[in-house]
């Protein structure tokens, strides 16, 4: 469902050009749990942003569900992010003025899901991550691990076809990180497509397949 063909992303800062992605080709199928591993600055986030339609490639083509992404307007890209992609960020990225339930509800508001259905799915998603009791807590009243679980609930609530997680455990201690990883495996078992970005080989190893990236180039793919 995700297919990159010779994708490159080049940043120009002053005189220097940085090839954040250099001729990357890859494909990820529906239901897969793939990890992308590489050192800092290797282009992992750039890759994820392009997969998640937050950014566009400078060269090459990206096909999502068979259709090239460059044909879409900005508005259509927003709808794709809304319906097909569930983002989970290293820094959680919850909206600070909203409580847990409202954060989880947000993608469904943009999907125009009716209020009653939203309420049901907020409850379902928060129960799945075990934070239903904390639904009225603001992000700053939650621990890092709890915030990340709310973020996962938010990503799930929109019922996307792909979950994109950029170092979801990067800001968490190893125990909490393990809990989050357990949650991902559970979601994978339920049939969700997951792309997980990490620089931690141990975390990467928990995926079905691992794609190693270095200086914007794919080094090797390892099947688990």
């Amino acid at each position, binding site marked *: 469902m995700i297919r990159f063909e010779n994708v490159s992303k080049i940043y120009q800062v002053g005189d220097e050009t940085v090839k954040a992605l250099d001729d990357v080709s890859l494909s990820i199928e529906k239901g897969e749990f793939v990890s992308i591993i590489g050192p800092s600055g290797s282009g992992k986030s750039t890759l994820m942003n392009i997969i998640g339609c*937050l950014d566009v490639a400078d060269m090459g083509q990206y096909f999502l569900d068979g259709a090239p992404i460059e044909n879409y307007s*900005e508005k259509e890209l927003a709808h794709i992010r809304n319906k097909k992609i569930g983002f989970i960020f290293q820094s959680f*990225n919850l909206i*600070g*003025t909203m409580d847990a339930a409202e954060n989880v509800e947000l*993608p469904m*508001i*943009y999907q*125009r899901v009716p209020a009653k259905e939203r309420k049901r799915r907020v409850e379902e998603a928060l129960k799945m991550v075990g934070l239903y009791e904390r639904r009225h807590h603001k992000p700053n009243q939650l621990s890092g691990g709890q915030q990340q679980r709310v973020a996962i609930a938010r990503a799930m609530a929109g019922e996307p076809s792909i979950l994109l997680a950029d170092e979801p455990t990067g800001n968490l201690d190893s125990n909490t990180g393990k809990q989050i990883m357990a949650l991902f495996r559970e979601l994978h078992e339920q049939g969700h497509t997951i792309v997980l970005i990490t620089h931690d080989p141990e975390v990467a190893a928990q995926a079905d397949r691992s794609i190693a990236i270095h200086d914007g180039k794919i080094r090797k793919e390892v099947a688990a």
Partner: protein
Amino acid sequence: MIIQSMKMAIKAIASNKLRSFLTMLGIIIGVVSLVVLVSLVNGATGSINDSIDSLGSNSLTVNITSGQDKPLKLSELDSLIENEIFDEIAPTSKTSVTASTSYAEENVSVTGTTTAYMNIEKLEVASGRFIMNPDVDNHSDVVVISEDLAVDVCGRSNVVGETMKLDGKNYLIIGVLESSNSLTSNSDNSDYQAYIPYTSLIRLSDGISLDISSFEVSVNGDDLDKAETILENVLLNRFDNDEDAYSIFNRSQIAEAMSSVNNTLSLLLGGIAGISLLVGGIGIMNIMLVSATERTREIGIRKAIGATRGSVLMQFLIEALMLSLFGCGIGIGISELVIVIVNIVGNVSYTMSISIVGISVGFSVFVGLVFGLYPANKAATMKPIEALRFN
């Protein structure tokens, strides 16, 4: 989506109440000044117009300035108003005297005139009667006084049949006028008014002779300008084409001048208030720009989650609109309060002008939209990854 945007806007406004209030302050002050000033001017205009109406704006006043070689006599007056556009004519002559009783004394403006004066000036008698023809014919020493004069000099208002001294000469009080808060024609500062027969005034004051120096004419219908032209011809004829012998004073011209002054005043004050509303709008723009920058990350998150440019635009625009409308609502409330206080303190009964309330609501919507648009657009066009990277 609009309902959701409104909920978000209310949340955003409520989450920083002090700042929201300060933002709204500009609009509040603008609306209060607009509504209160225009309502007060309208109220004042209304009461001034009432006063002008009660002056009897269907009368002309003529002053004979020269023409001493061919003086106008009392007996001739009726011949001046033979044209049927004229109704009644009354000579007037004024002097200032001291009115006294054993109770008190005051300076009073005395008008010497005839019976017709009462109708021309639309005076109302509260008790007794006004000057009648025999009083004029007999040079009677009778006086009709205003109610406040009766109260202040005689001690009470029902004084018909008693006597009052004018410059030491005894006058029989035959009538007391109803008090009116009209502006008097050749307004003396003092409200004390006394009316005596024209012929009697001549004896009271050395400076006044039987020659008429000024008179008033009431007009049938309301074509005062036409009546003025006709009177002009009559007088030209009477004074051998000497245009400088007399001057005609048309009261509808004061009314017109007055209302144009009031319109100018409304426009001027409304304009000033409008400017303060605009300044309020700039305040909203300023805060919304700060808010858009502060919430860059939130905007990035929303866009990553699926907010379109349109929905972010809507969210910010509605927030700006709500700020200005809340401000406007508070402003209207405060205006009502101010008008109530003015009414109590000033002992008047001004009402809030509904049209200006409508105008201020419309203007607030306009200000909110116009000044909200730029920040909203700025927020909406942020690139999601750049917004997410913002700290």
